[in-house]
């Protein structure tokens, strides 16, 4: 399961043994995460107030002395150069349960997952002394790998692929024809003759075999066509051009 889909994992809650009006919120980082950079800081924000806690040597974040004065609904962001963390909401509330005067009641901290914009997701969990574990969304990758030259990437190029297929045809076709069933071969040749596409491929370059003398002698285009039937060459007054075999 990808980490960003996983729900908030919480450490077993420890019962608050002593009721104090100020409490400490400890955020723990999953154990597989190595030491975070020293500039990593956790922020608790609400309108008009920001609480900060830099990462400690033990790879945790400690918000000390959260009192009644800090009651409110906060967004928890952990800003780190190496990792993106999931977003959480933190509510510091005065405990409604229990008896006694309102003033004496302790403050409790509830933590829940939030989406961007502070939309509450997942269930609320009251945080005890053990703290709460925050999840890492992903590692931050700063650099783009430069696509270096590799022969394989060259092969993936459609132009190269087309050329390779073309080559395969050119060299493979005669071989295929040779190994063909004689009847089928005959049929194929018949078809080839009908086809417009055939011809020219094995015809030598007409320019190379331009019969200068014949042209000078005033041979007509018609006779040139005849001569093409014989496969000796071709030429016309309008310039050299390949003709279909008659």
């Amino acid at each position, binding site marked *: 399961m990808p980490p960003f889909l996983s729900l908030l994992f919480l450490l077993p809650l420890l019962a608050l043994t002593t009721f104090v009006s100020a409490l400490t919120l400890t955020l723990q980082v999953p154990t597989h995460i190595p030491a975070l950079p020293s500039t990593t800081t956790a922020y608790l924000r609400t*309108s008009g107030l920001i609480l900060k806690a830099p990462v400690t040597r033990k790879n945790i974040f400690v918000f000390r002395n959260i009192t009644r004065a800090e009651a409110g609904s906060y967004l928890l962001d952990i800003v780190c150069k190496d990792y993106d963390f999931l977003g959480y909401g933190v509510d510091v509330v005065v405990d409604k349960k229990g008896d006694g005067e309102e003033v004496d009641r302790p403050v409790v901290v509830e933590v829940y997952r939030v989406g*961007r914009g502070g939309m509450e997701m997942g269930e609320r969990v009251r945080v005890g002394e053990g703290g709460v574990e925050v999840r890492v969304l992903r590692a931050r990758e700063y650099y783009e790998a430069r696509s270096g030259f590799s022969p394989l990437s060259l092969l993936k190029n459609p132009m190269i692929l087309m050329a390779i297929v073309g080559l395969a045809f050119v060299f493979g076709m005669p071989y295929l024809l040779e190994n063909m069933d004689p009847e089928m071969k005959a049929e194929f040749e018949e078809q080839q003759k009908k086809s417009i596409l055939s011809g020219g491929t094995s015809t030598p370059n007409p320019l190379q075999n331009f019969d200068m003398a014949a042209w000078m002698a005033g041979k007509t285009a018609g006779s040139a066509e005849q001569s093409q039937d014989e496969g000796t060459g071709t030429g016309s007054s309008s310039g050299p051009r390949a003709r279909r075999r008659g």
Partner: protein
Amino acid sequence: MRLWVLLFPPSVALLCASVVQAIFADEAYQTDYHLPLLGFPQAHTTFFHRPSAASKASLLYTLSDRLILGAVNPKDGGVVWRQKLGNQVRNATTSSVLKAPEGGNTLVSVVDGKIQTWDATDGRLVWEWQNFGKVKGIETFAAAKEDHDVLALSEEGSDTVVRRLAADNGELIWEHRDASGDVPYSLVPSKDKVFYISLHSALLKGFRVKVTELHESTGKQSGQTTTLSSEGDITVEDRILHVGSNSGVPLIIWTDKPLKTLKINILGTKHVTSVNIPSNGGESAEEITILAPRSAIAAPHFLVHYRAANSHWAEVYHIDATTGTLTKAFGLPKLGGKGAFSANSQGSNVYFSRHTAFENTLVSSAGPTLLSQWNVRPKSHGGMVDPEDILHAASEVLPRGASTYAVRSALALPSGDWELIRNGEPSWVRPEGLAGVIAAAFLEIPSEKDLAREIAAEGMSDPLTAYVHRIKRHIKDLQYFPEWVEALPNRVLGSFLGDKVQSEDRNSRRDAFGFHKIILIATEHGRLGALDTSSQGKLMWNIQAVTLEAGEMWDVLSIEAEEGTALVRAKGGEFLRVVAKTGEVLHHQSGGIVKSLKTTVPVLDASGENVLIPINVDGSVGAIPEVDFGKGTVVVTEGKDGSVKGWKLRRGAKPDLIWQFTPALGQKMYSVNNRPPHDPVASIGKALGDRNVLYKYLNANLLLITTVGAETSTATFYVLDATSGAVVYSVTHPGIDKNQPIVSTISENWFSYSLYSESMAVARETTPIDEQKLKGYQLVVSEFYESPHPNDHGPLGSSPNSSSIYPTAVEEDDISATTPHVIIQTYLLPGPISSMSVTSTLQGITTRSLLCVLPELNSLFSISRAFIDARRPVGRDPTAPEAEEGLFRYSPILDFEPKWILSHKRDIISLSNVITSPSLLESTSLVFAFGKVDLFGTRISPIGSFDILGKGFGKLQLVLTVLVLALGTTFVAPFVRKKQIDGTWKA
């Protein structure tokens, strides 16, 4: 003017926006440069210290005047780690303390009553402790082998509280509360006792020193409180010169007002020893400093450093640890100039080193013989550093054998430089005086041979003279030919193997791509410096441009480039002209001659000449010179009362106030932005996927004004036409947090801003989710178009001219004003943005990028405008034409994508401004960011460097491929020929 030529936006690149802008691993740390500064080191918080008992080498620690705690490697001057402890405002009145227990692995700092302990090796926090009240002193107390508990003396209301906090987690061990109402001053642990000193107000005037002794393990008072009759001397706390303890002799030393006597008391006793301060050669001391080693086990010897107007000397005193008697051991002779001493110890041996402009000497506290003496090389580091008038020094003395010593000292110089000398040899220098840059500008490198001008001259003259001129020019150019040929093999090789060696003259010349410019910076304490963009931001020069009184800040308003020189304008009409390459001050006009004058601004008159217009402090325009302004020019000024005023300049007349913008009742002016001076618009419209055109609302005179509610939590953004003062558009945000940064920028036909807000979601059908507050940072992008419909100019129609002042004159019918059609989209950001600006390229064809400073990530972030296009389809996938345009489905969540972070893994502290400058390549913009501490510069290609070959282009590979192909062709050619001939014969 309406242009029908539309340049097709390079939309192909937008489709892979995530790929285009990213930083390649091989370009990081190559194209970008960073000057990680600390701020000026303070004398009492700077020292050499071993990060842990096990480590062999020590690091140089400082807590600077900008409240940055840092560890510097003494070998190369590189920063090992840094931590911001405050808000980096210089000359902060907050006292800061830094202590490092000998043999421990932590540092303890106090800033603003917050105690923090740090791991000395990697700078990670160990614990922090804060209570209301002010912490007046901290000391460490050895609890276990490496662990040192922290003793803190704080003033909480009228109570004096001493606490002992546990080394590992900061838990309270004991607390001693004293409600006597005396002012706590300091505390000294000595052996198993803790003394704290408070100042008891005497009956008439002055303070009596009150010393209380506590037991270290319980915090209970032990013994008597002793009160010393010091009221005649101590009228202010500064009279107390020293409080400390070495070898179990806790001391307090103070002096009287005329600096005639030193009074010394061993804490816990009542006896005060007085020592007369002799005048030395007719000069009397003006300032006295006491130096004692930091180590608790060092011998109880101390040095008294006397500073006179133009000389200094010192005396060394010993205290007998058993009898407590004070004896003067010896004196160090008077030398001219200002010097600095530093105290060190090795075991119980104490050494004092003396630093003056010309020498560095070392003495032992035992006797006056010089153990070592080195001459100091003045004008080190290319003449940039002169160790004159050393303010303070921190040194480390290492005995090498029986009689030789190695001394390295970090000298803090009045220029703000922090230089390390090793046995008198200059080793490195950190330009800490450059922290606190308030203004910066890109300057072009002046070209020696102005080719463009010569070619222009040829174009103007008749063909024959032009031809002769050209021939002459070519002949003249021939003299460079041998040089060029000589350099050719190196250039060719360099282009294949990677140009490692930079030729000398490249540093002073322009380059073909326009990447090489000079950045002029001005700091708040009156310094000017220049960085070279082509050689990793190397500091070219650094001068004290103006002298300021203590505590005064230089208020630079603008820096303008003018043909190889820079014009720096400061408050009060002060201006300064310096040569960009050398830093030579050509002209200096000090300010404050005319009291009411704030500054002068250059304005172009009808003939294209710059005319200086005086602007007064109250926002009015002063007397203007008799020049022709053509149809009139509008100057916009900011008034003192938070208003914005538009003044019209006309020939020979007093400037007229033509409009004034005052924030609505209950609102306060927050900021005013205008479009950048270089903001070219390549296309007046946006070519849509279906080949239609959406016309941009373009107005060169747009102003963006931000106001915030004084009582209510609202922010309002107004877009004004500066010519007429008309409000083109305005928007109000409820539920914002004024304490968080509100930043905005305007360019081309769009503006954007970012703020923190907590507001209710607006939805037709309310679900439980909608009832929650929408909390967080937002980025809002608004685009202006002439009309919502393509191929439509809106109310302006096809008229060739438009007027800001008479918008109705254009149209006969009922459309009364040309207000733009505005499209807005909002994104939710993961964190705050503290500064926003826009990239600039030569023609403006390249899609712009928004450059944002992320203060929490200590980074500079760039996001392409293509990504935050306000026309991204909402709630549906893009249609085919939209996709062709490069638009994709809107998503409200925008992350600070690591690949878009221009500063990548660098940690850049306290940036506040970003400036940009176009290069000669259309794809690339130069970027420079500065602020209270760090400087950072880089180049950015918002849609990829499409007009230059990147590093990924393998020249060698290309040549090899061509060679292989050529070889293959020559090899295959005979076969082909043979086959053709065979074919001819066979046929």
